């Protein structure tokens, strides 16, 4: 009875319904929460993959919610770009929902139903942001993701509550700026639908209000993705969050925000406005350069594995924002490809951190001692992830960096090229230092009972299998980069660039 045209709605609605079922199921039997969550995520992933295949074969899908045509109602618009992001989000959601079982049981033993309810709502929010074609609907979903993230971060240990509060303040400012920008667009045009705005706006380019609207939306989105001058909230928030939270939030939050930025720049406004009327793109690339260099340098000074990774996230945001604002084909292709690669690399790294926290109760460098002997599979996956972060050829990270470098050369923005190479060199130092720490026993127990602790002590299968899948995925994406570019990425370049 359900026709194939209804498939896109299942991507969002299944995790959404599951959230309430989980909260009710949690009142009766807590052990059903995690399997329900996995089930919902797998249905969502299946629907997302089916949609992606449909988009590749037949082009853009429009889905009218409530049967109302836009701009009267809300519509879903799925093109190559967001079909790909949908698959990434639902894949990460699926992987982490399997992985989280042991980790949540250890860190939040009495709040399991609430955790999985919010988990499903968070994934729903991210999927909804990606799929929607309505500027205001995006705001509502932005707030769902924000509220769930504040709570999921704040239940961590130590400074988590304070970091969560700072994130709340910054996140609310970001969302309010976005809402204000949409209000400016609405007062000037009378529409909220993205495609409709794209039609109406060109006659208003040059108006001060439109310029301010663009600026407000950009600043709002930059706050959400922790782009350079507005990155202060991110490191503490992600470091003190529970491992399952950071595994889900760290790979997705910044990438979905980058997606929103691309959507606003090219689908609501146009490349002509963004790069000619606005004419700030060289400054933005410079900001990205500062983000990359600064993020890498701060990462060097850290003595904590997880905190180091959070600074690398800031550097990676610089990659993507810089790539988009290079304003040429290779730059944008590199940035879009990096959304895919970086979410997989970050996921891989945070999964490793989660396992280390599960086994050694900490993420400081001291906790890494002789891990290569204790957990060979985990550390093998870590090595693949590290090589990809550095950008060594067969892994995925190399290819997006290659496109970004080509884009920098095309745009004559040599500073961006230098920053990319500098950051790769810093990554080499960072990850080889960690490999060294993990190869030898740590200093603190070198003299004591070092011999007893060197037996293989691998993580449980429910954590290890997802990690190995992701690590293998990094290699697979690397090998099939050519296919991904021909079938998906090259369609994401806006018309009229």
């Amino acid at each position, binding site marked *: 009875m359900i026709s194939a045209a209804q498939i896109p709605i299942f991507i969002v609605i299944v995790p959404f319904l599951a959230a*309430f079922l989980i909260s*009710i199921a949690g009142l009766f039997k807590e052990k059903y929460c995690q399997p329900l969550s996995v089930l919902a995520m797998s249905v969502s992933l299946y629907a997302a993959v089916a949609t992606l295949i449909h988009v590749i074969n037949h082009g853009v899908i429009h889905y009218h919610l409530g*049967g109302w045509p836009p701009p009267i109602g809300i519509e879903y618009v799925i093109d190559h770009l967001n079909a790909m992001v949908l698959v990434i989000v639902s894949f990460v959601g699926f992987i982490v929902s399997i992985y989280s079982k042991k980790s949540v049981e250890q860190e939040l033993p009495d709040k399991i139903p609430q955790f999985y309810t919010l988990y499903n*709502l968070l994934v729903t929010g991210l999927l909804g942001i990606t799929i929607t074609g309505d500027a205001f609907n995006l705001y509502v979903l932005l707030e769902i993701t924000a509220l769930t993230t504040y709570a999921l971060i*704040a239940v961590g240990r130590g400074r988590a509550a304070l970091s969560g509060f700072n994130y709340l303040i910054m996140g609310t400012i970001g969302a309010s700026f976005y809402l204000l920008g949409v209000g400016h667009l609405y007062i000037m045009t009378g529409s909220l639908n993205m495609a409709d705005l794209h039609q109406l706006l060109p006659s208003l380019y040059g108006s001060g209000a439109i310029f301010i609207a663009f600026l407000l939306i950009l600043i709002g989105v930059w706050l959400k993705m922790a782009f350079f001058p507005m990155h202060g909230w991110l490191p503490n928030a992600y470091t003190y969050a529970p491992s399952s939270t950071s595994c889900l939030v760290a790979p997705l939050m910044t990438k979905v925000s980058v997606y929103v930025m691309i959507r606003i720049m090219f689908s609501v406004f146009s490349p002509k406005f963004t790069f000619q009327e606005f004419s700030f793109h060289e400054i933005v690339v410079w900001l990205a350069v500062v983000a990359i260099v600064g993020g890498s340098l701060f990462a060097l000074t850290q003595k904590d594995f997880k905190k180091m990774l959070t600074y690398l996230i800031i550097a990676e945001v610089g990659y993507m924002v810089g790539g988009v604002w290079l304003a040429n084909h290779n730059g944008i292709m590199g940035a879009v490809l990096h959304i895919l690669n970086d979410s997989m690399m970050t996921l891989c790294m945070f999964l490793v951190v989660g396992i280390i926290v599960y086994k050694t109760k900490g993420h400081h460098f001291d906790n890494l001692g002789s891990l290569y002997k204790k957990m060979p599979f985990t550390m093998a996956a870590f090595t693949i992830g590290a090589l990809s972060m550095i950008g060594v050829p067969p892994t995925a990270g190399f290819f997006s960096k290659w496109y970004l470098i080509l884009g920098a050369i095309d745009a004559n923005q040599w500073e961006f090229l230098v920053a990319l190479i500098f950051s790769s060199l810093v990554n080499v130092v960072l990850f080889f230092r960690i490999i060294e720490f993990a190869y030898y026993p740590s200093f603190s127990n070198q003299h004591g009972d070092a011999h007893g602790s060197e037996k293989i002590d691998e993580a449980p299968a429910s954590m290890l299998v997802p990690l190995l899948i992701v690590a293998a995925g990094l290699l697979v994406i690397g090998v099939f980069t050519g296919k991904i570019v021909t079938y998906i990425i090259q369609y994401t370049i806006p018309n009229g660039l």
Partner: protein
Amino acid sequence: MKAIGLITVFSLGMALFYATIDFPPWADPQSPASLHVSPHYIQETMKETDVSNVVTSVLADYRGFDTMFETSVIFTAGIAVILILRKYSKKEDEKFLPEVSEEAEPDIIIQTVTRIIVPFIQLFALYVIAHGHHSPGGGFQGGVILGASFILLAISFNLKAMLRRISERKDILLGGIGLLIYSGIGALCVLLGANFLNYKVLHLIIPEASQVEARSYGILGVEIGVAIAVMAIMIAIYANLSSDGKYDKGL
């Protein structure tokens, strides 16, 4: 820090002020916002949905998808507060206790007035929910008022008195059920072969209803769902905030 803050605030103010120069004059009937999309809602609402309050018809039907997520924002907040604050075991004591902790004597006048007034508040809330089609109001306002009547009970007696009427489990259950009503009506439309939240196909299962009336009933259904969810979550947030998540005597 203060100087940077002031500079940021003033640059924001100047930017927004600069933007207002291009705005159409305030309350201008010829502004784009009044001409582009909104006339459709005003002209067609009676014909298409049989609801005379345009805000309700846009809220629950034309942009019903927004409203579903808006309700789930509240639900999210409720679960988030429970996740952050709720303490299930007695053993973890706080290091720092609130500064005002003297216990007030129960006041007979307040308690009697509350006893008399609460049923009327609840009756009014039900009226607001049911009459949202034709007058200001609807699920949100009604749900908040319903929740407020329980909060009034908790303030004038104590939290235990409220929890005797609506326990924690029942509360969370109601919150989930309210949202399941909303999204379930949407999913029912998909099962009947139309797009999500397209209430007009409900005429297949509602006896003697035309497609337009089916929309009207669909709107009423989701408003009831919203009201239940909002009431339950308001109670949950208050209960957690006022007792530090311990669900003891409250304020």
